[in-house]
C-alpha cells in the first residue's frame, strides 16, 4: 500500500501584514509556512512538532483548506485539492476533520452536546443507519461519555470531557484524516493520558490517519509513527519516531530534545543540555539560507547563504548542510 493518503509538496502560506515606517505603510509578509513537503499514509500518525511561530498550526489548517494556501500542492486521496473552491470542498470535508486545542472555545456554548455531535450529519446531509440520535449515543459511548448527557450544555462538562465531545464530533463521519491541533495541551496532566489513550485507540480501531500537532515532545513520541520537526515555517527533519528520538540528525532536533525536562531527577542532574543562544527570528524576516543558522552552533558561511534541501541521511530526511 504505497499511495499516500495525503501528499503535501512545497506548501506555502504567507500572511500579508503592514508596518508603519514614518508615514508610509510598508507591506510585509509573515512567512508562516514556507515550503513544506511530506506524505501521510493510511492509518499513520504523523507528529508535527515545533515551538511557537514555527508554523505547525497554520500548516495543519492549510492542509484541511481551512486556510487557503499561498503556493504549493495538496493531494488528498488522489485528488489535488490545492485550488479547489470552498464550495467543492464541502463533500470532501466528511473525510477530513479537525480537533481543536481549547476545549472551552471549540464548542458552541449555546448548543447541547447532542446537537454538537450531530452537526456533521446535518451539514453533510447524511443519515447514519439507525438514525442520528442512535449514532450520537453510540459515539458518546465510544469516547467515554454517558449517552444520557446528550441534552447537557458544554459548560456542564470538564475540560477533558469537552475534549472528548470534540473528538466524538470529529469521528462522527468516519473521516480518513484528522488534524489534531494540540488536543491535550490545555488539559491537566492526569487527564491528558486519558485523552491520548482515547485518540490512540480510535485511530487503531478505525485506521484514521492523524496529523498530530503538538509542542510537547513526550506526547508526540508516544503517539506518532513518524515525526516532522518544524522551525520558522520549514521542516528541519522528518523521521520514524524511534529514529528521531534516539538518533536525531538535525542540530535543532538535538537542541529540542536536550531541552525537554524528563521526570527523572538523577538523569536530569547529569545530562548535558544544549542551551540555544539568541532569540527566535521573526517570520516576517527569516534569516537567509538555513533559517536555523542564527542559533546553530555549527553554522558556516554556506548555512547563511544556501537553503538546505530535505535530503535523506541514514533513515531520516534532514534539511541541514552539516547533519549529525
Amino acid at each position, binding site marked *: 500500500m504505497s499511495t499516500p493518503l495525503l501528499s503535501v509538496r512545497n506548501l506555502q502560506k504567507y500572511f500579508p501584514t503592514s508596518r508603519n515606517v514614518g508615514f508610509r505603510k510598508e507591506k510585509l509578509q509573515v512567512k508562516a509556512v514556507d515550503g513544506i513537503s511530506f506524505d501521510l499514509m493510511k492509518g499513520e500518525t504523523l507528529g508535527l512538532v515545533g515551538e511557537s511561530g514555527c508554523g505547525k498550526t497554520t500548516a495543519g489548517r492549510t492542509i484541511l483548506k481551512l486556510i487557503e494556501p499561498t503556493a504549493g500542492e495538496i493531494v488528498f486521496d488522489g485528488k489535488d485539492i490545492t485550488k479547489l473552491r470552498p464550495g467543492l470542498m464541502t463533500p470532501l470535508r466528511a473525510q477530513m476533520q479537525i480537533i481543536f486545542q481549547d476545549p472551552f472555545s471549540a464548542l458552541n456554548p449555546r448548543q447541547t452536546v447532542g446537537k454538537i455531535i450531530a452537526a456533521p450529519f446535518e451539514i453533510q446531509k447524511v443519515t447514519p443507519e439507525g438514525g442520528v440520535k442512535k449514532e450520537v449515543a453510540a459515539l458518546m459511548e465510544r469516547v467515554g461519555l454517558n449517552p444520557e448527557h446528550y441534552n447537557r450544555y458544554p459548560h456542564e462538562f470538564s475540560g477533558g470531557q469537552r475534549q472528548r465531545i470534540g473528538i466524538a464530533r470529529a469521528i462522527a463521519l468516519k473521516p480518513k484524516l484528522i488534524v489534531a491541533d494540540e488536543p491535550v495541551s490545555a488539559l491537566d496532566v492526569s487527564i491528558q493520558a486519558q485523552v491520548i489513550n482515547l485518540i490512540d485507540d480510535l485511530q487503531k480501531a478505525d485506521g484514521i490517519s492523524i496529523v498530530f500537532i503538538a*509542542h510537547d515532545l513526550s506526547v508526540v513520541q508516544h503517539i506518532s509513527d513518524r515525526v516532522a520537526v518544524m522551525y520558522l515555517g520549514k521542516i528541519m527533519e522528518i523521521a520514524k519516531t524511534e529514529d528521531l528520538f534516539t538518533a536525531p540528525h538535525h542540530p535543532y532536533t538535538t537542541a529540542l530534545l536536550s531541552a525537554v525536562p524528563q521526570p527523572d531527577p538523577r538523569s536530569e542532574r547529569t545530562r548535558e*543540555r544544549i542551551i540555544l543562544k539568541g532569540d527566535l527570528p521573526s517570520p516576517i524576516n527569516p534569516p537567509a539560507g538555513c533559517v536555523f543558522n542564527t542559533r546553530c552552533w555549527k553554522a558556516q558561511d554556506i548555512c547563511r547563504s544556501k537553503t538546505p534541501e530535505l535530503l535523506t541521511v541514514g533513515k531520516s530526511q534532514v534539511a541541514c548542510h552539516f547533519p549529525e
Partner: protein
Amino acid sequence: MKNLLEIKDLKVTFPTDDGFVHAVDGVSISVAPGETVAIVGESGSGKTVTSLSVIGLHNRRVTQISGSIIVNDKNESLDIVSAPLDKIRSYRGRVVSMIFQDPMSSLHPYYRIGSQLAEAYLVHNPGQKEAANKKAVEMLELVGIPEPQVRAKEYPHQFSGGMRQRVMIAMALMNDPAVLIADEPTTALDVTVQAQILQLLKDLQKKLNMGILLITHDLGVVAQVADRVSVMYAGRIVEQGNVDDIFYSPHAPYTLGLLKSVPRIGAKSSERLKAIPGQPPSLINLPTGCAFAPRCEYISLAPSGSCESLKPELLGSNSEHKSRCHVPEDKRDKTFAAEIKGARA
C-alpha cells in the same frame, strides 16, 4: 539555620455562588536558604492559592485564611496571615518576591522596562532614583539581557516572551529577596526558552542563596530543578519529600498515578499510558474520607472502609518523606516499587 519560609497549617476558603470553596486545607511547607521546593499539582489542587497567600495577594475582602506563613529574613520576620496590610506590602518585592506565569501580560505596556525595574527598588528605598536606575541596569545584565543600558529604555512589547520573563525575574530580585515564589514561570514559554530560564533561576539561586518556591504541574520541570517536593491534591498535601524519594519511591497513590501517566521520551511507545481514571473532585463538596479515594486503585489494600470515611493524616516512617494514605507504608513500598519500575522502562 532558620528556614526562610515556614507555612504552617494554612487553610484558605472563599465563598462562591455554589458554596464555600476549600481551596487550601491544612498545608505546611518550609523552604530553607539555597533550596528549591516545588509544589506540584493540577488545576484545583490549591497550589496557586497557596502561592498567592504567601505574599498576601488573595482577595482580602472575601477570603478567609488561617494558619501561619512566617517569612524570615536576616534580622526580621513576619507572619503574613496575621500581619496588617501595610507590613505585608513592605515585604512584597523586598523580602518575598513573586513571578507569574504569563510574561507577555505581566509587564505594564506603557512604561519603560528600566523605570518599571527602578520602581521595584524605589518602593522600598524612596528617593534613591540614581541608585535605582543603576541597579536596574545591573539586574538586567545579571539575568542575561544583552546591552542592558539600551534595553532599559525600551518598552515591554519590544521584548520576546523569554526576555520578558527574564525582566520579571530581574524585577523580583531588585531588592535581594530571601524567597522567590515562581508560579508556573515557564509554562507559557517554548521548551528551549524554558531550559534557559530554569538554568537562569538555578544560577541565580546559587549566587544569592535565596529560597525558591516553585509552583508547577510539569513533573519534568520538578525533576530538573527541585530539591524537595510537595504534591498537592484537592487542597491538601498528599506527599512531601526530597525529589529522589518522590520520583523513585513515591508513597502516595496519586503521585504514583501521575508518574505512570506521564509520557516519557525513551519509553516504549507501544504501551498505553496508565491514566488515572475519573476526575479531580469539586472543592465545594469534598468527599468524606480521602479525596483521592474515588480514583484510587489501591483501596483494597487498606483496612476496609477507611478510605471512604476517614481522612488520612500526613505521616511517614522517615520524617523527611511523608504521605497521606491508609494503606500501610510497607505494603505500599512493595506494590509501588514494581509499578514504578514498569513506568520507567
